[in-house]
Structures are given as structure tokens and as C-alpha cells.
């Protein structure tokens, strides 16, 4: 004879406090597919909901700032590549401009135009990667594959210009490594033309996708006050309504000549940040087309910076004075005056700042790298509490950080 079985009324028991529950301590990372690098989240869970979240950084701390005190200014350029390794050209440019501000050196218009073009291409590349990673975190493999195909086209252009697919080390203090090759700007133009329809296709996979929206709308809301209090910058801050964009507010490298809009969100949830990045890519294409249309001729390096920028190789091999100059530059480094400078650039991840203290000579005395990802992540302990573990994955994907830059 079957006895009747009734399930215990667990909800009532839990509410009455009769169940003994305990919190679970879970460490997400440092090796985890969704943590975008080596980030470790020490979480305390009550069931599936977080009660505490403590990010542990430093798993990629390589000692960049100490290395900078031992390298000449040009020797440090490859290390800047590997800060935000998704947009190396943007980091190169920010560093070069910071050191040039220290030397009060103005680079000619062509150099500025090339730097702006490469920075915008790096922005597209970084946002594509952020989009792809965000997609793959929420389960959309196709978005990742499509984004990488477009990135490969960008890599091809970077390789033609600088010699490397990424980690380009392209800028030098006072100029660039070399001029643009013949027809390169036309190829960038062709890339832009074919990119916009493909971008629309990629965004169409996610923007009105019910699953994606369920996972990102109203998740991880950052208020405008919080964004300012925690020092958030870039698309993360703009998604919450903070309208800072250094390309418009304090233009550098010729950005004042280009017309573009800055997308700003309203709610500050993951979905807003995703939309901001998508729109920023379209604005980057707009800047690229204008920059290529206005592309100036002339020198691509500061021709009057004798103790800072190396002379052209043909002269070095044939003339004594240039040979000595080159020798001094390579061994002692570009000679900078004493003083300190702080320059910030609008990088794809946020605002990247370089604070350089110089006592004169070719080696900096102290270099501090203000990393956008470090500041963006500082809001995690507050943001993740009260969310599900799977929401944490969406939040990490929407913040789009890079540990190379966060840990330096």
C-alpha cells in the first residue's frame, strides 16, 4: 500500500528560521574562462546570492613601474603595449604624448593624424574583443567568431603598418617608428566601408535578443554618483551618465578637427554599457573616415628635436654627426628636462594616465601608470553583492577590463 508522501514546506521553514544555513566561500579564478584574465573573486555565497565579494588582483603584476625606472624612454615603449594588450597602439600613443608634454615637444600634423587613426582602429579592435568576450560569457559563440574575423582584418592592417599583428611598439618619443606605407590609408578606408554593415549584423545578434537582454538589463546598475566616487571612466562611466570624453573635453593629437558624437547611457546597467560600446565603434569609423580624408602631408616626426628623436637611418650610416647623435640617443635615451607631467588619454577601456617624474636625463625617476581597469574594478565589491553568481559573469563582461593593465 502506497503511503502518501508530502514534501516538507521548505519556504515556510526557511522564513521561520528553522533551517540551518551556512554561507559558502567560493573562489572564482584566477584561472576561469569568464574572468577575462587572471582575476580572482573571493566570494561568500548564501545559496546562489553573493553576500560578499573581494577581488584579489596582482596575478599579472610584472613590475612595470619599477622596470620604467631602469629603462630609457624609448626602451619602455614595448612595455606600454602590454598594458592594455587589446589596444596596444592607443597605449603607445598615450605614453608618447605624455613624454612629449614633459619635453614640451609638438609633433607635426601628419604624425598626430597617424596616431589618431591608429588609436581609433585600436578602439574598434578593443571593443570588438570586449563584445566578443561578453557574448561568449553569456553563451553567444557566434558573436565571438564574427568579432575575431573582423579583428583579423585589423591585424592585417596593423601588420602592414608596424610589422606586428598587435603589441606594435609603434610610437617613439617625438614621432613614430616609420611612415605609413603606400596605399595604407586607402585600405583602412576600404575596411571601414565593409565594417559598418558587418557591425550591424553582429549587434543584431545581441541587441534585441531576449536571452541577452534578460541577462543584462537591470543587472549591475552603477549610479552616476557611484561612477564618480569610484573613479570609473570610459564606456563604463558613460553608460551611467557621466559625460566625460577627453577627446572632446581636452583634445590631443588633433582630435579637435574631427566631428563625432559621444554616446552616453542613462540607466548604467550592463545593457547600457554594451550599447555604448557598440555605438562608439560606429563613431570611431566616422572619425577614421574624416582623418583619412584630411590626411596631411609633411614630416612624420619632430624634425627639430635633436636630442630626442633619432635621425633617419640613411644619414646615420653616412654622416658623422648623425652617427654620434644616434649613439647618444640609443645609449643614454632621449634627454628630458627635469620636472613632472601628468597626461591622460581616452583609451578604449577608460582613461589611461601617465605620471612621469623626471630628474633630467634619459631615464625617468618615477613613472606611475593610472590604469582604467584598476579603477573600474574597484567598484566590484559594492556592485556584486546581492546578485546571482551568473550575474557576476555578466557584470565582469560588461565592465570590459584587462588584467595586464590592472596589475601592470
Amino acid at each position, binding site marked *: 500500500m502506497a503511503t502518501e508522501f508530502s514534501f516538507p514546506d521548505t519556504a515556510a521553514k526557511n522564513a521561520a528560521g528553522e533551517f540551518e544555513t551556512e554561507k559558502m566561500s567560493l573562489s572564482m579564478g584566477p584561472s576561469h574562462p569568464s574572468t577575462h584574465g587572471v582575476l580572482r573573486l573571493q566570494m561568500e555565497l548564501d545559496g546562489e546570492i553573493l553576500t560578499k565579494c573581494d577581488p584579489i588582483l596582482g596575478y599579472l603584476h610584472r613590475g612595470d613601474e*619599477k622596470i620604467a625606472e631602469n629603462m630609457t624612454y624609448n626602451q619602455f615603449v614595448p612595455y606600454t603595449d*602590454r598594458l592594455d594588450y587589446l589596444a596596444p597602439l592607443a597605449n603607445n600613443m598615450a605614453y608618447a604624448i605624455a613624454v612629449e608634454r614633459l619635453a614640451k615637444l609638438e609633433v607635426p600634423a601628419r604624425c598626430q593624424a597617424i596616431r589618431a587613426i591608429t588609436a581609433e582602429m585600436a578602439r574598434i579592435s578593443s571593443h570588438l574583443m570586449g563584445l566578443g568576450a561578453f557574448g561568449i560569457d553569456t553563451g553567444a559563440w557566434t558573436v565571438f567568431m564574427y568579432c*575575431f574575423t573582423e579583428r583579423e582584418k585589423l591585424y592585417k592592417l596593423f601588420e602592414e603598418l608596424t610589422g606586428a599583428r598587435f603589441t606594435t611598439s609603434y610610437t617613439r618619443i617625438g614621432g613614430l617608428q616609420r611612415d605609413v606605407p603606400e596605399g595604407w590609408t586607402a585600405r583602412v578606408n576600404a575596411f571601414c566601408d565593409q565594417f559598418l554593415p558587418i557591425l550591424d549584423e553582429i549587434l543584431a545578434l545581441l541587441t534585441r535578443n531576449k536571452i541577452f537582454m534578460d541577462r543584462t538589463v537591470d543587472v549591475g546598475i552603477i549610479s552616476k554618483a557611484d561612477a564618480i566616487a569610484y573613479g570609473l571612466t570610459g564606456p563604463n562611466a558613460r553608460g551611467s551618465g557621466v559625460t566625460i570624453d577627453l577627446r572632446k573635453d581636452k583634445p590631443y593629437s588633433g582630435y579637435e578637427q574631427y566631428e563625432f558624437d559621444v554616446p552616453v547611457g542613462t540607466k548604467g546597467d550592463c545593457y547600457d554599457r554594451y550599447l555604448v560600446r557598440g555605438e562608439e565603434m560606429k563613431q570611431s569609423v566616422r572619425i577614421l573616415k574624416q582623418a583619412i580624408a584630411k590626411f596631411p602631408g609633411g614630416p612624420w616626426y619632430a624634425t627639430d628635436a635633436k636630442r630626442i628623436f633619432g635621425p633617419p637611418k640613411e644619414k646615420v650610416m653616412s654622416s658623422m654627426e648623425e652617427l654620434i647623435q644616434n649613439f647618444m640617443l640609443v645609449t643614454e635615451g632621449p634627454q628630458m628636462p627635469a620636472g613632472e607631467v601628468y597626461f591622460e588619454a581616452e583609451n578604449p577601456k577608460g582613461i589611461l594616465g601617465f605620471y612621469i617624474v623626471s630628474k633630467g636625463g634619459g631615464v625617468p625617476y618615477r613613472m606611475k601608470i593610472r590604469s582604467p581597469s584598476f579603477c573600474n574594478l574597484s567598484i566590484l565589491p559594492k556592485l556584486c553583492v546581492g546578485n546571482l553568481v551568473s550575474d557576476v559573469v555578466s557584470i565582469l563582461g560588461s565592465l570590459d577590463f584587462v588584467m595586464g593593465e590592472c596589475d601592470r
Partner: protein
Amino acid sequence: MVSSNTELGYNTKVEGEVMVSRADAVINWIRNNSMWPMPMGLACCAIELMATASSRFDIARFGAEVMRFSPRQSDCMIVAGTVTYKMAPHVRRIYDQMAAPKWVIAMGACASSGGMYRSYATLQGVDRIVPVDVYVSGCPPRPEALLDALMKLQAKVKREPSSKRLLSA
């Protein structure tokens, strides 16, 4: 092994549905063509690893597209990026959790020897903490270089006396 022209070699009508070969050859062939990597993607090389996995360079044609982050299910750990002293114990733990047979590819200059980061925080080569089978140079190595490393690993695995180890384990 079976060639495409069955007339010259193996003929089903003569030999039936049975192939005869050395145990080593079969075991190594199986291991080679489904070498599932455990991507220890730490820094910039991880991006090139992802590029190798995507459409243009397609690591799937080597049978290695299953990049699960679970060490229990993987054969080959690809250490892609700088290993710091803080991260080194975790890399070793994950290596220990992998089931035998396992191999390690040190991808990039930082994993092979510390790279350009000669500093207080960087492990000077991941071979100080796990045994490495193939080193790939480059900063970061091109996807073709990583695929070449995979092929070299396959050549190495082909030469292993697998059946002896299986029986003696």
C-alpha cells in the same frame, strides 16, 4: 594506416574489417589528433591563442578546439602569457590536477624564460615549476607558430612508447 586508395594497400575484401598495427602507433595516433588544450591564458599570448582558435587559423582542424577550462578533461596545458610568482602555485596546482598523459606547451617569451620582464615579480620561465615539452618563441607568437608548436608536439607524442607506459602504470 588506411590510405585513400584502397586498391593498393588495404583491401576489405581480402583482409576484412580488421586493421593490424602496432599498439604504440594506434595509441599515439589517437592522442595526437584529439589533443585537447587547457588554455592557461594569462596575458597577451592568450589573445593570440584565441585567434588560433577562431576562424582564420582554426585550431579545430588539428582536433584541438575543445578548450575547456577543466584540467580533468584536457591533455595539453598551453601556458600563454607571463607567469608571476603569485600565479605560479596556481599553475602548478592545475597541472597536478590534469590526468596523465599530459604535456605542456610554453607559449611566448614570457612563459619560456620570463621574456622581457626581468623583475622581482615574474617567474623566469614556467619550466621552473612545470615540465615543458615545447617552447614557442615570439612576443606574442603568431598563430602559425603556435600551430607549428602543436605539430611538433604531435611529432614528439608519435615517438613515445605509450603502450609500455600504459601497462606499467
